[in-house]
């Protein structure tokens, strides 16, 4: 014999669910990742400063090694900083729901970031040809490890930005996704001037 159970009220009424903010978790997760990366670069910088201090005054960079192209890299640095500004403007336009202008600025940031990586690659090729390798001197070791790690991050940031740009063009870009990409891109952009000043001068 089938019996129907009477509907009962829950004994412990649940509070209404709190509003969800996906932007917080994504941006926070990316910020935590960036924190570990900053400490990685801080370790590199500290090791570089210690090794540099061991050399006699005036003996750095090593005399038998090529000079790093300070002026040419200044152009790359300007391009990377400009890409950071472009992404900042894109973020402001997105908050104003002006996706058309935001897409243009995001494209500009992507192009400038790609220019930076390609120009750095060309610079590396020239330096390798002049005899600066990973094992040629302490300068070479530190140069390729520090600048190479940054370039790796720049490539990852370009890939993330390209995916976000594509998502924006298709109307699928979420606030959280863009926030996380923006944090990573700003990390890549803002850490570079410090590395440039430390390694190239």
């Amino acid at each position, binding site marked *: 014999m089938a019996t129907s159970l009477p509907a009962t009220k829950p004994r412990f009424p649940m509070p209404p669910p709190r509003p969800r903010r996906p932007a917080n978790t994504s941006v926070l997760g990316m910020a935590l990742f960036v924190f570990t990366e*900053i*400490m990685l670069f801080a370790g590199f910088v500290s090791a570089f400063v210690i090794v540099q201090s061991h050399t006699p005054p005036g003996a750095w960079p090593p005399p038998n090694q090529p000079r790093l192209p300070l002026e040419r890299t200044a152009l790359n640095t300007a391009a990377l900083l400009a890409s950071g500004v472009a992404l900042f403007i894109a973020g402001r336009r997105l908050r104003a729901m002006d996706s058309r202008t935001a897409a243009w600025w995001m494209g500009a940031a992507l192009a400038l970031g790609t220019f930076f990586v390609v120009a750095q690659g060309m610079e590396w090729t020239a330096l390798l040809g002049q005899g600066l390798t990973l094992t040629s001197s302490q300068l070479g070791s530190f140069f390729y490890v520090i600048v190479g790690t940054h370039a790796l991050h720049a490539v990852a940031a370009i890939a993330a930005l390209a995916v976000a740009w594509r998502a924006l063009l298709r109307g699928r870009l*979420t606030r959280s996704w863009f926030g996380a990409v923006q944090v990573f891109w700003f990390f890549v952009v803002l850490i570079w001037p410090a590395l440039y000043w430390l390694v190239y001068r």
Partner: protein
Amino acid sequence: MSARTMRTRLAAVLLGVVVPAAAHACAVCFSGSPRTRLAFFDTMIFLSAVPLGIIGGGVLWLRRQAKRDANAVAGALDDAGDVFPAPSAAPRKRPIAPRAHGA
């Protein structure tokens, strides 16, 4: 651990604190030039200050976010409003003037 062992270990620690050069607790700190010692000192401060600064900044950011969440309207935070519109769907800044037919 006996009282004697305890005293011996305590004396060793005190000796290391009072006379660090004799203990050679840190070989690099006592064998380098003044320039190297300064570099160690600077990087020690740098490596201590960077995480503290970042964690402090993170705490401030989380506090600001929590305040914003508390003031937010529940309906404004749904997933549907979280996606940016596609450029093709976004309204143009300046409306295009309609073409005159039959011109």
